[in-house]
């Protein structure tokens, strides 16, 4: 896939851009590079409810093995993040990218579990938890979210490569806002 690197990056950018540009409960996005086609599949509002809740639960009590307290697997949590993205400008989704015959890759995001301030580093001046291009493992801390004077760790829910950090350091974020885009491995 190395030689496809740029193309993948471009497609990722377009995918995220597209998701940012539309509202609506998008659930799955297909971008084909060859004969430029772009398919979008919308979420089933019914699924929204518990999924969102499951995700919230999972995101809140996110533990080092990426399991929610109710034992939802990280995959489920991701889907939840996806479905819960209903109508948000910069929220989670998955895009299957087909490049003339290359294997499909899943693009996920790490959403913010609540309203707060986003920090990339353990403390001012320190090295950031992760940089674009880093590989992360489930449960690995990738950022801090400050809410009501409490520092909440943000964990990766799945293994993969950070392709894009979507929020500035020390920026205010809202619930469900996409913080990182990553390409699952």
């Amino acid at each position, binding site marked *: 896939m190395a030689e496809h690197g740029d193309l993948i990056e471009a497609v990722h950018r377009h995918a995220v851009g597209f998701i940012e540009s539309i509202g609506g409960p998008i659930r799955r996005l297909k971008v084909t590079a060859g004969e430029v086609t772009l398919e979008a599949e919308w979420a089933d509002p019914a699924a*929204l409810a518990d999924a*969102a809740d499951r995700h919230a639960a999972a995101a809140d009590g996110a533990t080092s093995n990426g399991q929610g307290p109710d034992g939802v697997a990280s995959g489920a949590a991701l889907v939840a993040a996806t479905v*819960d993205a*209903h*109508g*948000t400008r910069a929220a989670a989704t998955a895009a299957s990218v087909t490049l003339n015959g290359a294997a499909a890759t899943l693009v996920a995001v790490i959403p913010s579990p609540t309203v707060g301030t986003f920090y990339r580093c353990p403390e001012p001046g320190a090295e950031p938890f992760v940089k674009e291009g880093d590989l992360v493992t489930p449960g690995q801390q990738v950022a801090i979210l400050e*809410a009501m004077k409490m520092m909440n760790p943000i964990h990766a829910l799945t293994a993969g490569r950070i392709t894009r950090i979507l929020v500035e350091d020390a920026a205010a974020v*809202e*619930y469900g*806002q996409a913080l990182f885009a990553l390409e699952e491995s």
Partner: protein
Amino acid sequence: MFGTVLIANRGEIALRVVRTCKEMGIRTVAVYSSADEDSPVVRMADEAVRIGPPPAKRSYLYAPAILQAARLTGAEAIHPGYGFVSEDADFAEMCQAEGLTFIGPPPEVLAMLGDKAEALRVLSAAGLPVLPGTHRPIASAGEAVEAAAGIGFPIIVKALSGGGGRGMAIAMRPSELPEAYARARNAARAVFGDERVYLERYVESARHVEVQVLGGLHGQVLHLGARDCSVQRRRQKLIEETPVPGLPGDVAARLCERTVEAARAVGYVGAGTFEFLLDDAGEFHCIEVNCRIQVEHPVTELVTGVDLVREQLNVAATGAPGITQADVRLSGAAIECRINAEDPARGFLPTPGTVESLTLPAGPFTRVDDHVRQGMRVSPFYDPLLAKVSVWAPDREQALARMERALSECVVTGPGISTTTGFLAGLLAHPLFRDGKHTTALAETFDPA
């Protein structure tokens, strides 16, 4: 006046508050759950913060996210609307701790009046008539039976932290009391996480009458007349009106004055509503105080010309209302109907869904408090209120005719969506209602079909 106000609510009341804030030049912050992404308030507010997932306990009831949103947006005050955190003394206290103004009564008052039994003791001490009852928690069925002797049947067992008609059970005769006690206690535990209950005389046939008050920080309390909300189903109000039909002006005036004195005595601040039962003997019994803006406040606004949300903001910002009792002149009659996304044919089952076509009434002396838009999804997570339709007229008869006309214009369609419009039209046409001789029993038993 505040520079920025955060509205910790959703739906029509959030939009209602934003409207007045805009008119007062106040910057607004809306908070919303991911189920309310497409609510117009998210666009109409100057700023909007998504605070959580659809379930209210994780968004509209989740204080940390609300307060954090206030901090991040530089809000100086929080308007809680009705429901959700509006009468939550703890939330009001957290606001204080955060240096935010909670737009409502002070935490002590909320706590005092939030404890239904203590509230009755206080209100009675303040000179308002209350129903015979224990006015304190009852620890056992045995204690209940003892206490019942001094009250007389029928008796209603109520949750101490109750409200909205939940956590209640009725005993028509002594034999039913132990079971009613147990039922209320279980409901109270389940609904409010507080199993404490108390006993009160149950009034079977009564009118629901309430007095709108507005209090300042320094004992300035005024009233804005009385409303009749006797058209209820399972203690949910469906139609509200003012003045109270059939109630002589001097009687209404006396009730309002006594309420003002009591409100002053309990140190009430902000907009509030004192609720009374008016029994067949013409006696008033105060049953509780709602420490917030009411859903039905538009009818009071229509007959007084006073913007109650504006006055809430005045009191919160300056400690004093912008008006005095002398400024309050009651003129004409007003009625409000709540258009709910419910199916009367299926026990008022909520009918969420996407609104395909939407037409709300307009025209002379017709007010609509809306929040739904064509193409918008009516969420299953919150109350099914689609819109409030209110009309004004010189007298009740013309107001009824006007409301009939207004309801005839309502069209809300979409897959699976039903509304209560037809049911409300049926109630409006009911002889008992037309004559103003109805009680809270009317809507419970009414069947339009």
